[in-house]
């Protein structure tokens, strides 16, 4: 080290922890630390310096923090196709609020995280759905809301209807119902949040 005096200032002597702290930490902070941690001996003995200075610091994997941030602020694309759109709007509204989960409906696909396909996808609409999905930046998820988006629903026997949106885009959560209750859609978002936390190793997917 170039500057030896500076290194000595921060050099920690393990056999006398109290003296090591008093060298660096001001008296006031030392007093507060004593108040907060009532044990006689330093519980953070042998641990990193920042744990003794700032005991309230959490340390975790970056994946966990990023996943936590992503799941708490899911912005769905306002993509109401048919009748399920009305229940999706009801879920956003005051009675079954979705904003408390951080879910904010966003009209543009460029800033949206999750695409809630609510309603029947016809073969005429399918290219637009695929284009919107591709316009969303990664990481992105898809919730297939309702029977029509899952497998064609009541209209599955008509040949202009796409029998499920998972034929063109990958789906993460399926919600059944015709239309699903707002509570079911809320449950879908919570399941998606659980899935995001479980999949947290795959950054940038």
């Amino acid at each position, binding site marked *: 080290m170039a500057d030896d005096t500076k290194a000595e200032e921060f050099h920690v002597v393990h056999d006398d922890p109290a003296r090591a702290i008093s060298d660096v930490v001001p008296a006031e902070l030392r007093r507060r630390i004593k108040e907060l941690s009532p044990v006689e001996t330093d519980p953070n003995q042998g641990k990193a310096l920042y744990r003794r200075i700032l005991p309230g610091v959490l340390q975790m994997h970056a994946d966990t923090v990023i996943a936590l941030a992503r799941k708490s602020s899911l912005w769905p694309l306002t993509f109401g196709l048919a009748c399920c759109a009305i229940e999706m709007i009801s879920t956003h509204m005051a009675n079954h609020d979705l904003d408390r989960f951080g879910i904010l409906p966003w009209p543009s696909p460029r800033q949206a995280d999750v695409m809630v396909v609510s309603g029947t996808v016809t073969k005429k609409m399918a290219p637009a759905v695929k284009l919107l999905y591709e316009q969303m930046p990664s990481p992105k998820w898809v919730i297939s809301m309702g029977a029509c988006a899952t497998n064609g629903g009541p209209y599955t*026997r008509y040949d202009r209807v796409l029998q499920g949106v998972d034929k063109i885009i990958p789906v993460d959560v399926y919600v059944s119902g015709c239309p699903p209750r707002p509570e079911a859609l809320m449950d879908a978002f919570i399941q998606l949040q659980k899935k995001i936390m479980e999949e947290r190793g795959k950054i940038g997917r």
Partner: protein
Amino acid sequence: MSAAQERREPGVKETPIVPPPPGSVADTFKAALPDVEFVANQGVLDVILTVAPQDVPRVMRAAKDDPRLAFDFLRCLSGVDQMEQGLEVVYHLYSFKHAHNVTIKTLLPADDPQIPTISTVWNGALWHEREAHEMFGIVFQGHPDLRPLLLEEDLGYHPLLKSHPLAEIEESQEDFLREEAPAAAATAAGAPPAPVDERAAKIALAQKKAEAMKKAREEARAKGLSPEDEKAFVQEALKTLEEGS
């Protein structure tokens, strides 16, 4: 035609003809157009008049312009597929001035359904006729813009005809991709758009395949095969069908 006859349920009845009471709008029509032949029928709510297709433009123009009739509101224009008898076009009219209704029907031959347009009489007929054209194949002569409205362009078939079947439920995702792949390959090769007959032939072939697959699946399930054996059985059935055709 045999498929259509099979679909017809036993006990199909035709509508009985009941003449309307005197003084109804049928008499006004007959007075306004004495040389047009009307077959008048008292329906559940309105009087139903059946005319020949070539008389329709005159009847509609008189319905709107004649002060005794004054039908200024076209309620609805529908097509009905009457199978062997042909294609029917049904017009429902209402008059705000006299507060009376009428239903006017005409029957077109199934192989050449052409009728003059009435969009010159009522603007509201524009979209109704476009929809009837793409759903049934009825050609409205003189319509300014007979492009498909609800369906994609050059689809090749008319869905609401009775001869067009319902779609089969696709059990796996590959069914859809397999169906789209030949069409994509054709357009990639720069092939000209296939005429209607070829498309219909392709659809007939696909339907035959679907039938064969369904039969093979049922047989395999009856025999109690495992899923892999079932798949192999189905593939064999398809192969025999292709070799046979």
